[in-house]
């Protein structure tokens, strides 16, 4: 892990892999809850964790350099750490969210082609994969789910669809994701869910916050 300065009030932790990102996200969130770190935002991403709204970044960088995060357990049970608050109001993510998915996406045959298997095998692999929310972005509540082996990565559509319906379950690169609202999108559609993923009247508003473990279960 390498610490990079970002402007006058932020730091970027440049990590080796997604497991280290999750470990640092959980560690920094815990340290903030314990009053050992001041940061308005702790933003995990693909290979980095951003600390923003840091009053004294030099001091924070010195502190962080002396901390050691617990290793993340990919898709396992150790993702939940004590006091891992994920919202300003202190909500914590559920241990695991089971997302009911109807696997009837238009791009299932395309995914099957990339993976060299048939469509039932694609569905079996997706339902059998323990996913974890690596980070959110693109839109409020849009979670990037990791857990698929890197060799199953798939390309985006050459031309994005102008409108992907809310609840669409899709793949791109090494990630799975679920569109919280209707939007343009270039990910490969594998299914859909009726689960509400982002609701500003709920705390936390995002069902799939970073660190949350996820199962994309097939509905009957």
């Amino acid at each position: 892990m390498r610490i990079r300065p970002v402007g006058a009030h932020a730091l970027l932790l440049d990590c080796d892999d997604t497991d280290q990102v999750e470990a640092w996200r959980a560690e920094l969130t815990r340290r903030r809850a314990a009053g050992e770190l001041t940061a308005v935002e702790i933003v995990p991403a693909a290979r980095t964790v951003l600390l923003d709204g840091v009053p004294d970044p030099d001091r924070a960088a010195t502190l962080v350099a002396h901390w050691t995060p617990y290793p993340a357990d990919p898709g396992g049970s150790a993702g939940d750490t004590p006091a891992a608050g994920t919202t300003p109001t202190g909500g914590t993510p559920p241990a695991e969210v089971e997302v009911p998915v109807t696997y009837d996406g238009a791009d299932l045959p395309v995914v099957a082609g990339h993976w060299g298997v048939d469509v039932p095998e694609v569905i079996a692999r997706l339902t059998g994969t323990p996913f974890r929310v690596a980070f959110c972005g693109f839109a409020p509540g849009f979670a990037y789910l990791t857990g698929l082996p890197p060799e199953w990565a798939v390309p985006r559509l050459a031309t994005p669809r102008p409108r992907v319906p809310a609840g669409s379950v899709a793949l791109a690169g090494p990630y799975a994701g679920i569109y919280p609202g209707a939007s343009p999108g270039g990910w490969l559609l594998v299914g859909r869910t009726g689960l509400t993923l982002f609701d500003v009247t709920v705390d936390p508003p995002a069902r799939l916050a970073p660190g949350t473990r996820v199962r994309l279960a097939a509905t009957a």
Partner: protein
Amino acid sequence: MTRPPDPGPARRLEVLRAGALTTVQDQGRPGWAHLGVPRSGALDPAALRLANRLVGNPEDAAGLEVTLTGCTLRLTRAGTVALTGADADVWIGDGRLGDGRTGDPHTGDPHTGDARRTGPRPHLGDRPGDVGRPLAVPAGATVRIGPARTGLRTWLAVAGGIAVPPVLGSRSTDTLSGLGPPPLRDGDVLPLGDPAGDPAPVDVTVGRPAPPLLRLRLRLGPRDDWFTPAALDRLLGTPYTVSPVSNRVGARLTGVPLPRAIAGELPSEGLVLGAVQVPADGQPLIFLADHPTTGGYPVVGVVDDVTPLAQARPGTTVTFHGPQR
């Protein structure tokens, strides 16, 4: 976006002419970036705080951010308003037009030209006001804000604040994610809160004229190593121009492209206010209040203070300087 419910016959702000882009803004919704929720908020937060002080509001009350062409509003009950930011004509009227109609001509006035292009003219019963002072507005009176004389944006605070329901702790319109109330439209009615206190007895309302050249302090990183030394020389040694496609998300710049030292794709990473991101075309973009929470192009540096960009019209020249040069 859901439109606010009709607040009923109470303290309200009626939107007679919404203008090009008028949005509700407060100090934004920080603390949710890890869920993909942008910060949003007024593009010049200090200017809105000042307007709030001038009418006796808490500094974090919601006001209006009025862009370029002005707008016309009506208060159902007597109150105080104040404007800050770009200078503009302000007229407090009795709600009548010269021809006896009330409201504002939506289709343009044959004598004065299209009101939406030229801005309001004084009407029967109007009296002029100033940007930077508390203005008393009688019940039923109109507040006409003309086009910005220089710069782009004016903030309007009303005693009591705009009382649309907060979303994740903020009433701000986020033009990227769609959170908060939608941009104002002609005919909208906004609820106002109860005035909280007296206007600040003394305050400093030094106007910030929009200079034709903005000199922005830049700190390199976190991804300056993705660019060639020649690119960093260009960035710190060449003027750039604010592009017309700039908005609340970011100020897009045009100028000499910044060549990359690393050609590959950068995995998405968290973004901060003022980040100077360089997309594949090599033309930098400075992220403003409605910036996305993560981005996949390298950030060459971060601008210390983006508030001058709130008044940067297309064509404004921008240069960067840093401790390095």
